[in-house]
């Protein structure tokens, strides 16, 4: 039996801004149904790599395949849900209700010139229920807390029922009490609904007990494998990867 192609397949990708190389020889494949944590310090090229996957940036060299289709021929963008860093993606004063924001996630799927009907409204309500925000449907997004807003953005990302969900530092700006229930929700999407997840974070400790695979990025991809393999690395190998001492299971930083 032929194996299913990986959801995302990146081969020999290089990227540079002006003269500075940001990514070199990146090879990464995301298997279907996995929960991959992409970790790396600030400035390691994580966001750049995401933008390349999403087609927002073009790799100078290399090759990206989505669902077995070369990226420049890929059309089914509604199969990929994306949740960006909350802070820089929208202005908080924007007068839009939770319902309107989540409906935005169906725009591409509906196609040009079509207007939402009862089917779309139901999908929105269902997605909002899945993230536990159903009692906020008619509230303005700007009136919600950071954690609530991020839930709404997850709802927007999953409303089109994508097979893969990409999250860029989703817990930045979310208070620590809500981070745990936020990850709980992600695990539910991955295990119960079979959604493939690619989560980008600089905080590896926060995700070690949740993800199935880890990729460590710092210009080069230093490690890529299952969580099992990752925890078997010793202290020295880890700090080679990450540049400084890290703790795997304790993610409560002392400040």
């Amino acid at each position, binding site marked *: 039996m032929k194996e299913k192609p990986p959801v995302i397949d990146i081969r020999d990708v290089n990227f540079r801004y002006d003269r500075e190389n940001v990514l070199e020889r990146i090879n990464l494949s995301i298997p279907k149904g996995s929960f991959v944590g992409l970790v790396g310090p600030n400035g390691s090229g994580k966001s750049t790599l995401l933008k390349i996957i*999403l*087609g*927002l940036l073009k790799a100078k060299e290399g090759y990206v395949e989505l669902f077995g289709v070369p990226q420049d021929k890929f*059309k089914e*963008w*509604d199969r990929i849900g*994306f949740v*960006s860093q909350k802070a*820089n*993606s*929208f*202005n908080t*004063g*924007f*007068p*839009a*209700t939770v*319902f*309107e*924001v989540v*409906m*935005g*996630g169906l*725009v*591409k799927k*509906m196609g*040009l*010139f079509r*207007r*939402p009907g009862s089917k779309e409204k139901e999908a929105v309500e269902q997605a909002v229920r899945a993230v536990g925000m159903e009692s906020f449907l*008619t*509230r*303005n997004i700007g009136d919600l807390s950071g954690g609530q807003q991020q839930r709404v953005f997850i709802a*927007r990302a999953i409303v089109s029922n994508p097979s893969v969900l990409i999250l860029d530092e989703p817990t930045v700006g979310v208070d620590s009490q809500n981070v745990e229930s936020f990850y709980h929700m992600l695990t539910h999407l991955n295990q119960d609904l079979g959604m493939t997840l690619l989560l980008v974070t600089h905080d590896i400790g926060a995700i070690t007990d949740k993800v199935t695979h880890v990729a460590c990025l710092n210009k080069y991809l230093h490690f890529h494998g299952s969580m099992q393999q990752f925890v078997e690395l010793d202290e020295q190998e880890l700090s080679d990867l990450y540049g400084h001492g890290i703790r795997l299971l304790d993610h409560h930083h002392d400040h």
Partner: protein
Amino acid sequence: MIEAIFTYEFLQNAFLSGAIIGIIAPLLGAFIVVRRLSLIADALSHVTLSGIAAGLLLGQTFPVLSAVNPLYFGMVFSVGGSLLVERLRNVYKHYQELAIPIMMSGGIGLGVILISIANGFNTDLFSYLFGSVSAVSRNDLYAVIGISLIVLVTVYLLYKELFVLSFDEEYAKASGIPSKAVHLAFIILTALVIAVSMRIVGVLLVSALMTLPVAAAMRIAKGFKQTIWLSVLFGEVSVIAGLISAFYLDLAPGGTIVVTSIIILLGVIFWKKEKN
């Protein structure tokens, strides 16, 4: 007043044009304000002025062209200006707002030169600057109706794309919405609406009709649709009240319309403050 409207064609033209502009200017304005493009509307109106001046000058120099409504020259300049703004915003990626003073001063500079060449064609200019109750022709009215139909149909068809693009441009691009094309359509519509609105509110105040009603609506609206409806309501009240007072007090309607919308804005801000 009602009787006068039935009697005089010029009043019909002014009030019908005004009533329509009162809808479409705040409608587009809602998107303009949330996308932080308010000043672009201002820049385009100044470019439109140089188009009008070019039209008047050409009409003066070549009598054949005097039959062409200068408004159409204004539209051409405005649309051209809107495309140029986009180019400039790409040239100065990190200082995108620079595009605005460049266009604004360029528009006025060119306009002033054209006006000087024509020895300041006294007649119409004042009405183009500040609007007029008496200078709106049947022809102008037809232009307003035509442009408005285009605007209403386009916004109706592209509403969801425009909303997503306004709310979160990065997301719109990431999800594969043709954001460049949608943005282009939007900026051209804006240019056209500015050009036709000028007859009523004037070059210098046209952007006010696109932003002030929205500024008021945003204070109290729940959601974006409600923001649009309230903006249109406030815009319509401003235009009608402004035109009526301009007619009775013999004032330039640009001024009365804008002052009315400022009063509404202050009222809303004050009411919201009291409520809390």
